[in-house]
């Protein structure tokens, strides 16, 4: 029971780490950013390369974050921003195209085979109360907490966060208030992409593997979380991640054969949305 | 003569905000009733409650003595209440012709008749033209609302409401944002509609025109009826002056 609870929390925090970036992007551009998963995979690959060369996890994380920031910036600048005036489904499809392209690019560059990403930390695992947590999992928990707190602080406590929200609601008027839209959007993408990169590296070391298709499930499943959280709400995303993580864990532990985890996630989402159509932390419109 | 629209003690609150505490109102056939009151008094909320956008927490709404409380908005619209919105809600990306046609065809659309897969909608172009001409927008018939200035969009909404062939027309600040040049003919149109037998409920802050147009005024304040009566009397009511009109 304790172990299952821990399993749920850890799954949930990995989800949160990935979904928070999506929430940010959705929050500012109102785009369902499928290619976020490509950024995530990119982070894992860059991290792997950097780690192989330097042997330092910190450097690997920095390299991944930097690389993905550039990737995120390019996506935002040259793909999404010019499409903002279009119907919302158009950037979504562009994003899908980009995701297909990136996934295949990773395959061509890194080969179709799985690559191991083995990082040994200063301890292996801790056992307590008949439960076990590995060092990787502890690292994930800490990283998630730090990243989420930073993002939350930026959004709710700073002028930049206010500008993000304003830009999301009415770009033209935000501009008229003196917001440098381009800068604000860029900054948003850089943070979101860096976190995706970190999530990529964390996922890779947790599962000791990097492969071109590691983003494919994530690409759509994270939307269940973003939507459940209320689309654009950071605390909502965190709570939703934990709910989904927990329900998947407990469902697959006790009724594993009823349905696959993805379906569990989406079922949970649909059931909650029917009761609360605006998501957990969304505002009723 | 029974009132065409009778509203009894409606109340509506949003979370903590009591937008309507208790409002009653009667609209007589063939009259123009002005609904005035300070900003935030609950006028728009009142409209929305009558039109079925919100369900009132309390109270009843009768249209031609028929209880329509809690009916969905489209049914009330078909029963004969046409309305415009304070913050315009045009169908932004379709031509004015189709904007008006939607309401014109409401009875065709609602039923499962052959006319639903009807022969060309174009057949009704003349009627649409007439309705747009009424508010001076005939020349824009093929343009979309996005390309029109706000004032035009507001007038288009009146055409659209009229296309419902309503018994009651409810206008939410039709003159706001219109220049004097445009208001005068529009006021004429409204007067004409009344003469042709329509009953009109009008929210407006443009006092000179309200005074001229309306046969009766009802004043709301803090979600309650303050008073009602002929314009000349309301204008001199000290409560109205302090709460709303100013010196």
């Amino acid at each position, binding site marked *: 029971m304790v172990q299952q609870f821990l399993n749920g929390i850890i799954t949930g925090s990995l989800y949160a780490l990935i979904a928070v970036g999506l929430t940010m992007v959705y929050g500012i551009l109102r785009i369902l950013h499928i290619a976020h998963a490509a950024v995530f995979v990119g982070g894992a690959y860059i991290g792997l390369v950097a780690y192989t060369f330097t042997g330092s996890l910190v450097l690997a994380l920095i390299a991944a974050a930097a690389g993905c920031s550039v990737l995120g910036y390019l996506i935002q600048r040259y793909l999404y921003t010019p499409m903002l005036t279009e119907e919302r489904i158009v950037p979504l499809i562009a994003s899908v195209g980009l995701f297909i392209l990136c996934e295949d690019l990773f395959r061509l560059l890194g080969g179709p085979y799985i690559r191991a990403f083995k990082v040994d930390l200063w301890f292996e695992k801790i056992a307590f109360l008949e439960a076990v947590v590995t060092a990787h999992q502890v690292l994930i928990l800490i990283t998630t907490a730090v990243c989420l707190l930073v993002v939350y602080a930026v959004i709710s406590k700073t002028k930049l966060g206010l500008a993000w929200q304003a830009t999301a609601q009415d770009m033209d*008027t935000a501009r*008229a*208030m003196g917001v440098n839209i381009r800068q604000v959007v860029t900054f948003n993408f850089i943070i979101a992409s860096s976190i995706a990169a970190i999530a990529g590296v964390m996922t890779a070391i947790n599962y000791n593997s990097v492969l071109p298709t590691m983003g494919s499930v994530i690409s759509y499943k994270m939307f269940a979380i973003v939507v459940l959280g209320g689309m654009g709400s950071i605390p909502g995303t965190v709570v939703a991640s934990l709910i989904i993580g927990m329900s998947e864990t407990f469902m697959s532990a006790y009724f594993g054969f009823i349905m696959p985890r993805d379906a569990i996630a989406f079922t949970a989402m649909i059931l909650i949305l029917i009761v609360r159509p605006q998501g957990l932390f969304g505002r009723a419109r | 003569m029974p009132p065409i629209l009778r509203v009894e003690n409606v109340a509506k609150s949003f979370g903590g905000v009591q937008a309507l505490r208790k409002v009653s109102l009667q609209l007589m056939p063939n009259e123009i009733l002005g609904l005035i009151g300070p*900003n935030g008094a609950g006028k728009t909320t009142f409209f929305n409650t009558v039109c079925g956008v919100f369900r009132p927490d309390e109270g009843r709404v009768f249209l031609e003595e028929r209880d329509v409380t809690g009916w969905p908005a489209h049914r009330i619209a078909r029963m004969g209440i046409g309305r415009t919105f304070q913050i315009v809600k045009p169908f932004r990306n379709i031509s004015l012709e189709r904007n008006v046609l939607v309401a014109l065809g409401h009875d065709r659309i609602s039923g499962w008749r052959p006319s639903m897969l009807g022969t060309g909608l174009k057949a009704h172009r003349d009627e649409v033209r007439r309705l747009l001409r009424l508010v001076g927008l005939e020349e824009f018939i093929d343009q979309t609302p996005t390309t029109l200035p*706000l004032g035009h969009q507001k007038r288009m909404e009146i055409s659209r409401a009229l296309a419902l062939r309503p018994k009651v027309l409810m206008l939410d*600040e039709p003159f*706001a*944002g219109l220049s004097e040049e445009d208001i005068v003919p529009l006021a004429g149109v409204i007067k004409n509609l009344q003469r042709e037998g329509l009953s009109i409920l009008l929210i407006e802050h443009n006092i000179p025109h309200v005074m001229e147009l309306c046969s009766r005024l009802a004043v709301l304040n803090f979600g309650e009826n303050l008073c009602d009566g002929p314009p000349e009397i309301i204008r001199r009511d000290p409560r109205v002056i302090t709460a709303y009109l100013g*010196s």
Partner: protein
Amino acid sequence: MLKVDRLSVSYGEYRAVSEVSFHVGQGELVTFIGANGAGKTSTIRAVLGLVQQTTGSIWLDGRDVTPLAAHERVKSGISIVPEGRKIFPELSVLQNLHMGAYTLEDQTRLARNVDWVFELFPILKQRRNQPGGNLSGGEQQMLAIGRAVMSEPKLLLIDEMSMGLMPIFVDKVFELVKKLNRDGMTILLVEQNAQKALGVADRAYVLKTGRIVLHDSADNLRKNPEIQKAYLGG
């Protein structure tokens, strides 16, 4: 203060404003009047750099700001009450006001200005934590005006100031504008209530189908019989 030279604005193939030139002197209160669709909003938005297809040049304080982006123009001291209020619907009233002061760095002045706006429009204080989108039309208009003055602009652009406001407040905001102007703020006012606008303005331009057709002191225009007939309901 503001000098606009042969400004044109187009939407696709349609030219909404053609070659208008005007100026607003330091400390002046200038108003634009004109029928619906005359191009007032387009002109104002062009001054701030919010419309894409423009030609002509815009000078602010003797500096050519034509190449500057909207946010940079705002930084140099312009603010706007936009047509249709354009309140951020999901930000609270207070956050909306903070957005108005986006370019203002000084926190104490920001707090003071918030208090000042709340004093002007007490209802906003009551609603301070409500989402802006839930306000009534008039309340939103007050918020839009309050938001625009938050940044203590040098040049205030107002598009439809009295729209949706109740009569007492119409008088009140005209007094406010007059007072701001007296305290040194330069103001460009677009207003449908031409009567009142000409009452407070120093000068006025009359726009018709995208062109300036008349330009004179406010007093003269008020006496002009044609203007009276067309715009003043007289």
